């Protein structure tokens, strides 16, 4: 509970003033702006890293990030966008609440997210390929959202069993 109470992003969600929100996900202007219009896509529930987030929420978050990226292209006249996720402290994560950064980019904005290519031996490449392949085998069978029966579906199921329905009605008479 403490982790949640002290989490900056949980507080941000609570404060409101959001760009967008639905059942599981919110979008907010990032408290620290890498470029004007830098936004965050955050799960409502307090998850620290990507691996904790149910598949369907993770997928949904990315599709929202995609919508925002398109909106940024359309409205802010950006030349590009970066999607950046710092997943884990070693990756630069500073707040223990998972977030997708969407950063508007324009030419010569001085933001360079580049890396120097590492020289790896064929051996190193092949071993990491095999190791990753072994663990990637299990990807698939993605977790789906549990469907709750909506009012509409209930209503439609009643006329299908006309007889049962009348019988049930009879039983109800005291």
């Amino acid at each position, binding site marked *: 509970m403490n982790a949640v109470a002290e989490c900056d992003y949980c507080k941000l969600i609570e404060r409101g003033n959001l*760009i967008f929100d639905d059942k599981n996900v919110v979008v907010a202007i990032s408290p620290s702006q890498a470029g*004007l219009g830098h936004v965050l896509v955050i799960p409502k529930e307090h998850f620290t890293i990507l691996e904790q987030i149910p598949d369907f929420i993770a997928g949904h978050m990315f599709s929202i990030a995609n919508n925002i990226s398109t909106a940024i292209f359309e409205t802010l006249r950006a*030349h590009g966008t970066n999607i950046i996720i710092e997943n884990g402290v070693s990756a630069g994560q500073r707040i223990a609440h998972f977030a997708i950064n969407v950063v508007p980019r324009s030419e010569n904005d001085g933001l360079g997210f580049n890396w120097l290519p590492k020289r790896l031996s064929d051996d190193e490449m092949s071993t990491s390929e095999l190791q990753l392949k072994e663990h990637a085998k299990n990807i698939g069978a993605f977790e789906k959202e549990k469907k709750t029966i909506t009012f509409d579906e209930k209503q439609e199921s009643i006329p299908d069993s006309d007889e049962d329905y009348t019988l049930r009605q009879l039983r109800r008479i005291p």
Partner: protein
Amino acid sequence: MVTEEELAQMTPEELAEFQKQNCVFCQIASGKIPSKEVYSDEESIAVLDINPAAKGHMLLMPKGHYSVMPQLPEHLAEHMFMVTKGLSQAALKALQCKGTTIFVANGVAAGQKAPHFMIHIIPRNDGDGISMTIPSREFSKKDVEAVGAVLKKVLWRKKAVEAEVVKDEKTTAAAGIKKGKSKKAAKISGKNRKQESKKTGKKSFDLDAISDMLGK
């Protein structure tokens, strides 16, 4: 080789086909160019980056040719990110790394080097010397709030359009079941779709402009 004149005379469809045939990553996805493949399913493939930021740096890309992220259909974006989660998890387990950086560049200005959408998954460790820190810059509060307000408007409008489509489809489907006039229902939903494409017609134009920006 194709001359610039020939390129200029191509129809948009021909140009798209040309781009596809000359796309290195399409050839990697189809196996024409050998690669170190880590994962593959019907719609996406993950390979090791030949210019890696770190050992185990993976590229996840769609098998179909999409230059930038806004062109991706929604289901594919969702699917690819669920696979990204799996690959990040695989990196943590297989390579015993401490974290992952997940990175997408959309557009040349954002550092995109090839006109094929891809997600980078980079294994990270403490003090690995990879500088991917997101800087913090000063902007006036007024500007930030104004931009937020604009984005808010656009996102909610998109959501409203989507809800309308779902509602239309539901009502036409329900009408089809109840009255047995499924043909008519199909016609109606087709009509709706047409209207929808009219509504989003402007958007697809914008996307073309974006992919143009990426060059050939």
